């Protein structure tokens, strides 16, 4: 009686155990990580790359357990790669790495040219944790990495995740495409452009050549200046260029400091010197009334950027003219579009200025781009 009862009990226990664990099983199926990806910075064969390995654990990792990363396809982990070249995060929280595990520190060892082994210290990692492992120069936690893995051959590289982590062991495999060239070089050309135009007009506007400024009759009480008051043209300079160094505009005259020279008696002239125009004081020169532009910056070049200058003003601060030329405008070393400058011509005489009706001078403007 006891024997039959014991047998029934034993049988029941056996059945229960069998149902729970299974009686015949060659294998305990390994658990696989999920969302397993390996992001490279380069996928070209035989090329250095940073690597970001991400996966979600199906089970926790206990103390002393290992994560083994194994590459194939001739992938090469440099000999010098160590824990300083690797960052590891658990749910975005940096873990401490070292050459050997201790307490909450994971040990990281380059086991071979294709294998990295991570060994947990004594701090378990929980189930469903997202593990991110950065390998390469982007591993900046602590010491910034200076070693990178070299991709293998053209084809598919697999990263096999194994080790003792989890129970049953956690495994995973992710693939990476390795291609002959992962880069596209985009090229284009922008041709050089530069346009320069002069006009002479009392008001802003396009005029035809020849460009001229007639100063009229100058008296000691009437300094002649561009503008509507005296109906004297101003000189308008227009400039466009995509020169990387921008452009400058220079001006020179035919007579230098002699300024306006009588054609009939060349020894007689109205000199040109820096300074403010004053009735009764002989002088002749230019100043820049205004500079504008659509894009970029058109500037009055030194020394034309000093003093005052306006249309109809008989007291403008002018600059002496030279035969060698002097910068009058620039684009601040950059391309410019729609550059527009208005330049005032000023002339005054003194009481001893010899009367002639043929005082004249020739101004030459040059725009130079730096490409």
């Amino acid at each position: 009686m006891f024997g039959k009862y014991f047998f029934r009990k034993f049988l029941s226990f056996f059945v229960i155990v069998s149902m729970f664990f299974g009686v015949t099983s060659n294998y305990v199926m390994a658990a696989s990580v999920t969302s397993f990806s390996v992001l490279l910075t380069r996928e070209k064969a035989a090329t250095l790359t940073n690597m970001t390995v991400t996966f979600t654990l199906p089970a926790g990792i206990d103390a002393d357990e290992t994560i083994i990363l194994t590459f194939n396809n001739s992938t090469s982990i440099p000999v010098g790669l160590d824990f300083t070249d690797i960052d590891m995060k658990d749910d975005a929280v940096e873990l401490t790495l070292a050459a050997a595990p201790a307490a909450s520190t994971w040990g990281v060892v380059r086991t071979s040219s294709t294998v990295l082994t991570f060994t947990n210290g004594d701090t378990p990692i929980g189930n469903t944790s997202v593990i991110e492992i950065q390998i390469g120069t982007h591993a900046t936690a602590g010491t910034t990495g200076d070693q990178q893995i070299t991709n293998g051959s053209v084809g598919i590289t697999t990263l096999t995740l194994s080790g003792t982590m989890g129970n049953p062991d956690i495994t995973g495999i992710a693939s990476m495409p390795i291609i002959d060239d992962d880069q596209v070089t985009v090229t284009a050309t922008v041709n050089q452009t530069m346009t320069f135009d002069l006009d002479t007009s009392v008001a802003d506007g396009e005029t035809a050549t020849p460009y001229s400024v007639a100063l009229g009759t100058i008296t000691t009480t009437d300094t002649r200046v561009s503008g509507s008051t005296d109906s004297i043209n101003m000189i308008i300079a227009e400039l466009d260029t995509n020169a990387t160094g921008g452009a400058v505009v220079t001006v020179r005259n035919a007579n230098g400091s002699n300024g306006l020279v009588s054609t009939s008696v060349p020894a007689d002239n109205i000199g040109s010197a820096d300074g403010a125009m004053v009735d009764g004081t002989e002088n002749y020169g230019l100043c820049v009334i205004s500079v504008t532009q659509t894009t970029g910056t058109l500037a009055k070049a030194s020394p034309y950027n000093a003093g005052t200058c306006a249309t109809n003003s008989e007291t403008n601060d002018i600059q002496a003219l030279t035969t060698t030329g002097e910068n009058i405008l620039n684009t601040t070393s950059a391309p410019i579009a729609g550059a527009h400058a208005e330049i005032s011509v000023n002339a005054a005489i003194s009481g001893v200025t010899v009367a002639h009706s043929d005082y004249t001078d020739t101004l030459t403007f040059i725009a130079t781009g730096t490409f």
Partner: protein
Amino acid sequence: MTGTGGASTGNTNYGIYIVGASAVFSNTGTGTIHITANGGGVTNSDSDYGLYVNTGAVISTVNGNLTVIGTGGGAGSGTTQLGVRVSTTSSTIKATGDGNISVTGTGGNANGSGGSNYGVYCSVANCIQKTTSTGTITVTGTGGNNGTGSGANNIGIYTNSGSITGAGGAMTINGTGGSSSGSSNDGIRVTASGGAITNTGSGTISITSVAGGDTNSSTNYGLFVQNAGVISTVNGDLTIVSTGGGAGSGINNFGVFVSGGASTIKTTGSGNISLTGIRGGGSTSNNYGLDIAVANAIQTTVSGNITVIVDTILLNEADDINSIGNLTIRPYTASTTIDVGTGSSTLQLTTAYLGNITWGTSSTLTIGGTGAGHVTINTTSTILNKNVTILTGGNITLQNTAFAHAGASAATLNLLAYGNITTTSAITASTSALTININADYDANASGAISIGAGVASNAGVITITGGGGTISTTSAFDNLTINIGSNTITLGAALNITGGLTISAGTLDVGNGLNYAVTVGGSWSNAGTFTARAGTVTLNSATTATVGGGPTTFYNLTITHTAAKEVNFSTNALHIIHITNIFTVTGSSGNEIKLYSTSAATKWHIHPTGTSSVSYADVKDGGCESGSISIYASTSINSGNNESCWSFAGSITFSLSSNSINLGTLSTGSASSGSHTLSAITNAAGGFAISYLATTLTNQQAGSYTIPVYTSSASSPGTAGFGINLKDNATPNVGAEPVVNSGTCGIASGYGTADAYTFVASTSTTITSVSAPANCVYTASYVTNISSVTAAGNYSTTITYIATGTF
């Protein structure tokens, strides 16, 4: 009856003389007749016959035995002292019922000088005959001139246009030439048209003939069939043991000599011929065991086999030996060496001789026997176009010349030796298949060794090493190979290449200790013996469907590969485990995955890899895993189901760019510049894939501070500088294409999925696709740029790195 001739010096002193058609000695019923007749004559008397049956005389019984003993007489220079003579006009000695006939004739003139003393002389048809199939004929003839005799032509039995005929009963013919010092003392001579020894039905003929001649006697043939002489049976076996005579400096003392006219030894039914030709004494030169100088000298015409047993042979005519069945040529004397072709052995079957023999189309030529000495094969002969067996108690060496099969029909070559078998020349097969069996342990005492040093090809036949260990040291390809060598071992001396299958039925195939020669098999692998892999590699590489099994095999490296589709079916036997201790490699190709299936669908096969694996483009089904197996990652492979956990089919991902450069040309403020290329990505990753890019914007290469500003979901606007990309079919400008969806869903990330709207994020890795499940997509990346009037002149470029990442 007993008769004795007189002792006269005159001639023709017969013991008994019966002559004329009315002369009859007969008995009926079971009555017997016994005749003893002794010729007389003295001094130089001629023609003193013991018994002379002449001119139609008859001696006969029915069911009773008929016995005749005749002894010639004579002496000195007297000639033609015949023991028994039967001649002319239907004279005969016969039994017409069950009675046996025994005729014994002994030539006379012992010690004399007169020749032609025949034991039995027959010169009329049916001189000795049986007319029924019951009862036997025994004829024993001994030539005269014995002792110190010196005459010639002392023939034991001489049928000269006469015949001894049976009708189905056994016939025994024993002829012994006289021991004279004269020449031509044949044991038996059958000559001239009508000269014959024949039997019918299933009657056999057994001929034992020994030529005579001593001192320096020449041309003493054991059996001489000459000038249209015939020895034949129908269904009964014809057995001849014939020894040449002669001595001293005598020459041409042949065991058997067949010459002239239509002379032949034959069977015309199912009877077999066994001919033993023993060369005579005297000079060894030209003393052949068998000399044939006429076509069809030895022949079977219906189904009989021929066995020729000789130490030396001379075959001068085409079809000298013509067997409708099997033909065997082997030495008479043990350990006699044999040449098949060129050589210096005793039994020389020269290439020319081999051209003068023939045998049945589906029958076999056997050269040698278990008592034969070493055999050397070196011939251009075409004998291998039909079945050939080389058999020896010694060694077989194939050298210098390829042994070639080029017959229209399949054939078999057996190389069977008690000793070693060595090949330094190839065995070739063309036109049809050749089955090749190589057995260097034919006596099953493990003493023979095989050394294969040249190619062996069977043209889709079967190559089997059936006995003996040894080496295979040729890299020439076998078209298949079976090793069935008991407990012996074949060791490789070179890489083994087999275009067909390899079967190890018994014994060991060793790739060489420290040598580790590769084994390449184009067909199936069956190992019921032992394969010693050491550190070698076995490659299964053909396109044909192959099986792997026969028993368990431990490989070191196992590689299965081919560029075309291929199926390998593994045995489902639980004991037939495929162990791989180092590298398991399977390399198929896209669309041509190598199928790794079992021989019985839904039943698992068994693998046990313990090293590493490299498996790509495989199609795996029913893959069972033995305990301790590593995880086999089958990349880019198909899981056809029922695979155990050592198989891993993690997803694959492929990625490609159609171009690595885009030249947007010379930019203009008046119109946009554009270009495109494709990005192809395929993955079976559960989480799909993401394609990202990383680059600066277009940058002036002369002045790096100048760049093209990037678009952000912007339209192209000529005259306004901007640079961007998208993955759409655009109209403004006309560039790009919609994604090609080969499978799955090919989504596009925000900013890149609206036509005519472009985006570029400089210097930050940015994802441009949105694919969250397995997919096969081809995107067209369009590049669009515009410049303004102040876009700095120069060359602009950027290098964009594209990355595809699967989420598995």
